[in-house]
């Protein structure tokens, strides 16, 4: 059976993905390419941070302590964040942001499908509540992959560059590690081996339809799930945590 610690660790991964990607998207707010898409980016950020809160609240419960969602979200060090490397990568431009988002959305969508039937009722509940939002995210980013991939020469080129850049980060999500496998066995975690093929197929078909060239590289950057991050995360956290760190114990 899953220990409380297992479930806590697993929940943190879910939470951190949502928070860190939400944080990256929040950087766009006020700087989007057109007002409607500025709103859309912020909307997805809001959804993800909302979902993150649900997970963190559950994680806080699981600690059995007085820890709050904010204590967990803000007061860990860099090595204790368990998000995928993909979601912490910088925005760079709208094309990079879309490719990053699309990779995450496809995974996220199928992950939640699995999680929705988790034997952990809380996680199943959060997953179910999130499905509608994430369906929308996937549709939005997927549409933009089409528009950018099959838009102008410039947009095609930029989006291809983004695709090549993020390709090694695309599938860390579906490579199970020990915790993933154990949580699957306990009937709590999503079975990544079940969704791996679906995710890869959906992504590759979609990219082809968007007239993009699939990179031939097969190597995956991994480590995020176990707190081995890129150098980008530290800066993101320094910024995100600044007030919590500078005014310890204050209520906001």
């Amino acid at each position, binding site marked *: 059976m899953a220990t409380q610690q297992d479930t806590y660790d697993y929940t943190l991964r879910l939470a951190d993905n949502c*928070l860190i990607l939400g*944080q990256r998207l*929040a*950087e766009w*707010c*006020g*700087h*989007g*390419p*057109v*007002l*409607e*898409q*500025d*709103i859309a980016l*912020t*909307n997805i*950020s*809001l959804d993800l*941070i*909302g979902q*993150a*809160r649900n997970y*963190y609240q559950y994680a806080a419960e699981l600690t059995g302590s007085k820890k709050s*969602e*904010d204590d967990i*979200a*803000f007061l860990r060090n860099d090595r204790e964040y368990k998000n995928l490397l993909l979601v912490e990568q910088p925005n760079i*431009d*709208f*094309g990079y942001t879309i490719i990053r988002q699309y990779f995450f959305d496809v995974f996220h969508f199928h992950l939640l499908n699995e999680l929705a039937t988790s034997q952990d009722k809380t996680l199943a509940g959060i997953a179910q509540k999130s499905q509608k939002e994430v369906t929308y995210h996937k549709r939005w980013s997927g549409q933009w992959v*089409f*528009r*950018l991939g*099959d*838009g*102008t020469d*410039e*947009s095609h080129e*930029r989006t291809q560059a983004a695709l090549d850049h993020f390709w090694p980060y695309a599938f860390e999500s579906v490579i199970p590690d020990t915790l993933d496998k154990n949580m699957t066995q306990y009937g709590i975690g999503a079975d990544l081996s079940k969704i791996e093929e679906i995710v890869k197929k959906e992504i590759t078909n979609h990219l082809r339809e968007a007239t993009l060239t699939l990179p031939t590289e097969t190597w995956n950057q991994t480590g995020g799930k176990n707190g081995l991050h890129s150098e980008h995360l530290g800066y993101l956290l320094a*910024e*995100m945590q*600044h*007030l*919590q760190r500078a*005014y310890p*114990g*204050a*209520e*906001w």
Partner: protein
Amino acid sequence: MNTIDLEKEFQRKLDAEEKIEPKDWMPDDYRKTLIRQISQHAHSEIVGMLPEGNWLTRAPSLRRKVAALAKVQDEAGHGLYLYSACETLGVERDELLEQLHTGKAKYSSIFNYPTLTWADMGAIGWLVDGAAIMNQVPLCRCSYGPYARAMVRVCKEESFHQRQGYEIMLTLCNGTPEQKAMAQDALNRWWWPSIMMFGPNDADSPHTAQSMQWKIKRFTNDELRQRFIDATVPQADILGIKIPDPDLKWNEETKHYDFGSIDWDEFWAVVKGNGPCNKERLAARNKAHDNGAWVREAALAYTEKKRKKTAA
């Protein structure tokens, strides 16, 4: 109808408090005044995203981060309503944006001040949105229909933002001494710019009379300013922080607060472009627009390709 009849009909509607609608005849200057005012208002919403946007990634709790994101997003939405309202007057959004980006169009000067601490998120909600509401509630009864209806939606959300801002201030004022000092500091910095938001004194506001006659404006700058001050002083008292105006005191006779004289030199300097952040705000908007050009082009090109395919 001839011009005289059209003018009469226009006047009749104004007198009867009926709305002027896009297809109705209206005097050229009425249209121009509205375009200027609505587009300035829209630009203010868009530029207004920047100072608060500055704290989104540093919001000190998840709850506050979500609320702040939603608020800045609402401002983008207000921008959209207002650009749409403006378009009903026969001017395209692109043209309006062009005016903003080249510095030809104005936006509210308040957004040329920097947000230096988290407390500014409170102060902006409480004071800046508070002043905005004071200005905007009467606009819900503006004679031009699309503007009036946009303002109904805007005002509903703004008053939510204002409460949210006040609540941030309240939390800080009930917090640690450092937090309360942060709140006081924010009030010190935002007070005067906020009361300048109502514009010059009536004597120096030549357009006011015409706008009131057209029922675009319903109150003068000084009337609105006084209302705002009367409403805000008791709120500061509840917070337990001090408005930075030694001349501020209740006047038993007028039943209003008297207040010190406003530094109009600062006001005009900022309007003219010499505020702490004028250049940065405009640069940020231009950068977003320029960096977005290829995205907008791609979306157009893709839609065109799809259209051709469907047509073929």
